[in-house]
């Protein structure tokens, strides 16, 4: 299994995860629906996971893979808090569009 991972040049993993990260960043900046933004943030975090695992496999060092577990746990907690906030907003304004939230002056 490890050989399969290492048989691909390392730069490709780096490129792939950078690409995924950029897609996530673009999504956060340009999409208007809060749930889609939340998904884009998850994409950013998971691109980091991919990067960590590939670095870990190439360096023959388990630290990176352990770190991935931390990231996964925190990402789950973050989604729970984020969805709770979105639900409480939906109850008040009946919308999950980011543009419906401009009560506070920018």
């Amino acid at each position, binding site marked *: 299994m490890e050989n399969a991972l290492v048989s691909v040049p390392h730069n490709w993993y*780096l490129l792939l995860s950078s690409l995924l*990260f950029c897609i*996530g*960043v673009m999504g*956060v900046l340009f999409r208007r629906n*809060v749930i889609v*933004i*939340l998904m884009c*943030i998850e994409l*950013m*975090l998971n*691109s*980091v996971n991919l*990067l*960590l695992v590939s*670095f870990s496999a190439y*360096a023959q*060092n388990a*630290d*990176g893979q*352990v*770190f991935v577990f*931390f*990231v996964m746990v*925190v990402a789950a*907690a*973050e989604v729970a*808090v*984020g969805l*709770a*906030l*979105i639900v*409480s*907003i939906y*109850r*008040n*304004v009946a919308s999950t569009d980011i543009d419906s*939230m*401009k*009560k*506070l*002056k*920018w």
Partner: protein
Amino acid sequence: MNTIIYTSVLGFICMVAEILNLRKVIIPVAVIGLAAILALTITDWGTTVAHYNDMVRTDNFSVAFGSLAIIITGLVIALSSDYYKNEQNHISDYMAIIIFTLVGGLVLLSYSNMAMLFLGIEILSLSLYVMAGSRKYDTSSNEAGLKYFLMGSFASGFLLFGIALIYGVTGSFHLEAINTYLASATTVSPLFYLGVLMLLVAILFKVSAAPFHFWSPDVYEGSPALITALMATLVKVVMFGAFYRLFSTAFGNLGDYTNWLIALVAALTMVVGNLTALQQVNVKRLLAFSGIAHAGYLLLGILSISTDATSALFYYSAAYALATIAAFAVAIPVFQASGSELVSAFNGLGKRKPFMAAMLTMALLSLAGIPPFAGFLAKYYIFSEAMSNGFFALLLIAIVSSIIGVYYYFKLILAMYTEPTDEAVVVKFPWVYIVVASFCVLLSLILGLYPNPVIQLF
């Protein structure tokens, strides 16, 4: 390490007290518990111990900043006894989450591994996302919570990507291992510098330095006032502690690469913070921009790592936090009584409540940096650190912007003493608020008159 464990246990006690129907005692227990934890923390002074395979390390730095963080949280919890008197049903949740915020802060002050840096930031932030949005039926609180959450997790993404790149190049998450790698490597991959840049963006975001400050006025305005006080003081102090720890331990050999960038951000932060504060009519927004400006001055301390600016940074954090808590202790009852958070809500407070108006005046004078208060010497120490490191142009900007800053603090003071009073509004200050405000102002005065015990700590 014991501090972190005991503080977490205190948080759990607050949650269990709800089940045992002991809501009335939660706040006294939390304050007494924090006082005991503070005493325990101080006994660790002078020892350096690594815990759990060197994930966490307690040293003088973590003891000093940790004690400050515990004092800040204790004061905010003391204020909450009156603030939440109509929300007794949720009191245990609120207290537990505030204490877990402190746990995140304590982790951030004693980490020696990137994993703990990440976990600390997340514990701190996740608790605050919930607290910022804790007024469920208030749309501006909802909006503040959501904005803080989206911006904060966006920044966490950058933090993680930065950590991953640094790990890829150096092969370790351990701060000292990274430092050793930097000292021994002949050529360092550009990926490493990209990683440091992304890490820097995320941390500057959390300390609300310009141009990453745009979230903070909105979040400060929309959040419940007590949580704004917590965010303005605890988060700023703790994040600067973490920032300093990161750059003094891991990136000590990186000076020239990051310094010009931080200097640029510091200059921008001071100018933007002070100039934008001039136009604010909402007191919470005013204090948010004042916090942004102070983040700019604190960045001077980060720039002076090579001459060990720990004591100047600590003194400045303490002076800023005490003055801000005193200001909020006076402002919260005024907000509640008048239902408005504008500067005009303070009109004539000097005649109606001369004592508390005097407390607010002294707190604002300390923030503006007027002697004999701690804020003046804090600015003096941090400016002289920057001077000895040769940041003359930056120092000029800092001095000019802090003179501009005096104007908007005086706007509030003038409203209290010269504007006609609105008789219809009766402000009542509960005794806890009077005690907390007097304590903070007194401490700030003592620190300003006898700075030596603090300034000679490190």
